[in-house]
C-alpha cells in the first residue's frame, strides 16, 4: 500500500528527534533542488541522497514502498512527456526522464518527512509558525482519524458482505456500484462522529475567545540549528552551481 509510505513510524532516531520545522526544511530543500536542475545525474543523486536519511530514520522499507508505488506514475509521466517531445521542442529523451525523476524526488521527499514526523509534532510546528489554530487542528484531525476511517470501512464491508454483497467480482462499473452500500454508512458515520467530536470540543471550552496556550512547545536545540545551517548551505551551493557553473560530464542537453 502506498499510503504506508506516508504514515508516521514511531522511533527514537536522530532524524525523529529533530525539530519538525528542520525536517520540513530538509524536505523542502530536496524539492527546491529538484526544481533547480534538469540533469538526470543530479536528480538521481538527490534520490539516492535520501536513502541514507531514510535508513538513519529506520524507515527505509516504508520509503522504498513509496518509490515502488510511484513507479507506475513515473513511467506514465515519462511516456506522456516523451510523446510531447516528438511533436514539440525536439529535446532528447533525457528531458522526460528528468521530469519523471523530478516527480519521484518531490513525492518521496515528502514521504520521508511524514514517515519521521509525528502528526501532532507537525501540528505544533504549524501552530508555532503562526498558522491559525483552526486550520492546524483540522489538518491534524484528518491525520488522526484516517486509521479510524480505515477500520470503519472494514467493519462496514464485513456487515455488507454478510448480507451477500460481492465485492471482489464484476467489471469496473459493477464494482463501483457495489461500493455504494459502503460509502453511505461511512459518510453517515463520519458526520455523526464529527458532530460528537464538535460537541466534546465545545464542552471543553473550544472557541472561548481567549488566546490559546499550549502544553507542549517545540524546542530548537543546537543540533537543530546545526542541521538548519548545513541544509541552507547545501541549498545555497545548489543555487550557486545552477547559476554559475556549467555541469560537465552529465547528460546535459
Amino acid at each position, binding site marked *: 500500500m502506498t499510503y504506508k509510505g506516508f504514515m508516521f513510524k514511531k522511533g527514537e532516531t536522530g532524524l525523529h528527534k529533530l525539530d519538525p520545522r528542520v525536517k520540513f526544511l530538509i524536505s523542502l530543500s530536496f524539492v527546491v533542488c529538484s526544481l533547480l536542475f534538469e540533469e538526470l545525474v543530479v536528480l538521481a543523486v538527490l534520490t539516492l541522497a535520501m536513502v541514507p536519511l531514510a535508513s538513519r530514520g529506520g524507515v527505509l522499507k516504508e520509503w522504498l514502498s513509496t518509490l515502488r508505488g510511484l513507479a507506475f506514475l513515473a513511467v506514465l509521466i515519462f511516456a506522456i512527456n516523451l510523446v510531447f517531445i516528438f511533436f514539440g521542442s525536439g529535446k532528447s529523451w533525457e528531458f522526460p526522464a528528468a521530469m519523471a525523476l523530478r516527480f519521484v524526488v518531490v513525492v518521496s521527499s515528502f514521504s520521508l518527512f511524514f514517515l519521521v514526523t509525528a502528526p501532532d509534532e507537525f501540528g505544533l510546528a504549524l501552530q508555532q509558525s503562526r498558522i491559525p489554530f483552526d486550520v492546524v487542528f483540522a489538518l491534524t484531525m484528518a491525520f488522526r482519524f484516517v486509521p479510524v476511517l480505515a477500520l470503519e470501512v472494514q467493519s462496514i464491508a464485513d456487515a455488507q458482505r454478510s*448480507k*451477500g454483497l460481492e465485492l471482489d467480482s464484476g467489471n469496473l462499473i459493477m464494482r463501483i456500484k457495489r461500493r455504494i452500500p459502503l460509502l453511505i454508512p461511512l459518510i453517515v458515520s463520519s458526520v455523526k462522529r464529527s458532530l460528537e467530536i464538535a460537541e466534546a470540543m465545545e464542552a471543553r471550552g473550544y472557541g472561548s475567545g481567549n488566546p490559546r496556550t499550549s502544553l507542549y512547545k517545540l524546542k530548537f536545540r543546537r543540533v537543530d540549528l546545526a542541521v538548519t545551517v548545513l541544509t541552507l548551505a547545501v541549498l545555497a551551493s545548489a543555487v550557486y552551481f545552477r547559476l554559475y557553473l556549467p555541469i560537465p560530464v552529465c547528460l546535459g542537453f
Partner: protein
Amino acid sequence: MIKLENVGYVYPGGVKALRGVSLTIGEKGSLAIMGRSGAGKTTLIKHLNGLLKPTSGKVTVDGVDTRKATVAQLSRKVGIVFQNPDHQLFAETVEEEIAFPLKNFGFPQDEIKTRTEWVLELFNLTRYRHHSPLSLSGGEKKRVAMASVVSWKPKYLVLDEPTLGQDRENKLRLRELFEEFMGEGRTIIMVTHDVEFTAECGFNVALLVDGKVSALGSAQEILSNVELLKEASLAAPQMAELFLELEGMGAQPVFTVEEAERLILSWLMAGAEKP
C-alpha cells in the same frame, strides 16, 4: 451444525485474538457467547460465516470448510446481525434496506415482496417502510438491521449484542422472536454481556476469556458461578447475587424475579431453617 476445531486467529498486526477454540454449535440448542470486551467474541463470530478464516484449526458449517466457500455462500446459512446499525444502513427506504440482502441472494421478486412484508410486521416496522432508515431512532435502527437479516431466514442467526440500548419490552419481544426461530429448528448464537437476558433465554453459555473457552455449560450452571463470571468480567444477575447471600438457607441458582418469588414462598410454607 457449526464446528470450530481448535481455532486460532492472529490478526495481521500480531495480536492473538483466538487461541484454540473448540465448539460445536447447533446440536444442543442455542448458545450465548460471553466475556469481556477484547476477549475475542466478535473475532469468533466473524469466523462463522467466513469473514475471517482461522490462522490455525478449522471451521465447518454443516460440513463445509469455511476456507472453501465465499462469505456470500456461507451467509446464506449463517446470518450475522452486527452490533452497529450505523455501519450497515444505506438504502433510501426501510423496505429497500430489507430487500437488499434478498436481492443479493437471488430471491425471486415475489418472494422478496412476501418476506419483506412478513419481516416488517414481525419487527413492528410497517409504518416506517417508506422512511429513510437513517431517520429512525437508535432502537428502531437496530430492529431494521435485525429485520434485514431475519428476512432470509438463515439456519443460524448470529447476533452481536442484541440487547444494547433496548428496554425491557423490546427484550421481551426479542425473546419471543428467538423462541419462534428455534421452534422452526433454527439455532440462535448471541454475543452478549447481558447476564439477565441470557438467563431468561435459558441458552447454553460459553465463556470466552483471553481467546479461549474457559467454561461451557447451561445458563443455570455458568451464570450462578460467581468466580467464573468475575473471570469473564461479567456481573451476576441480582437475583443470583441475592440468593448467594442467602447461602445458609440452602439457596439454589435463581435468575428471575418470578423464580425467586416462588422459591421464597415455598420456603415460608415449608418453614425455614435457622441460620
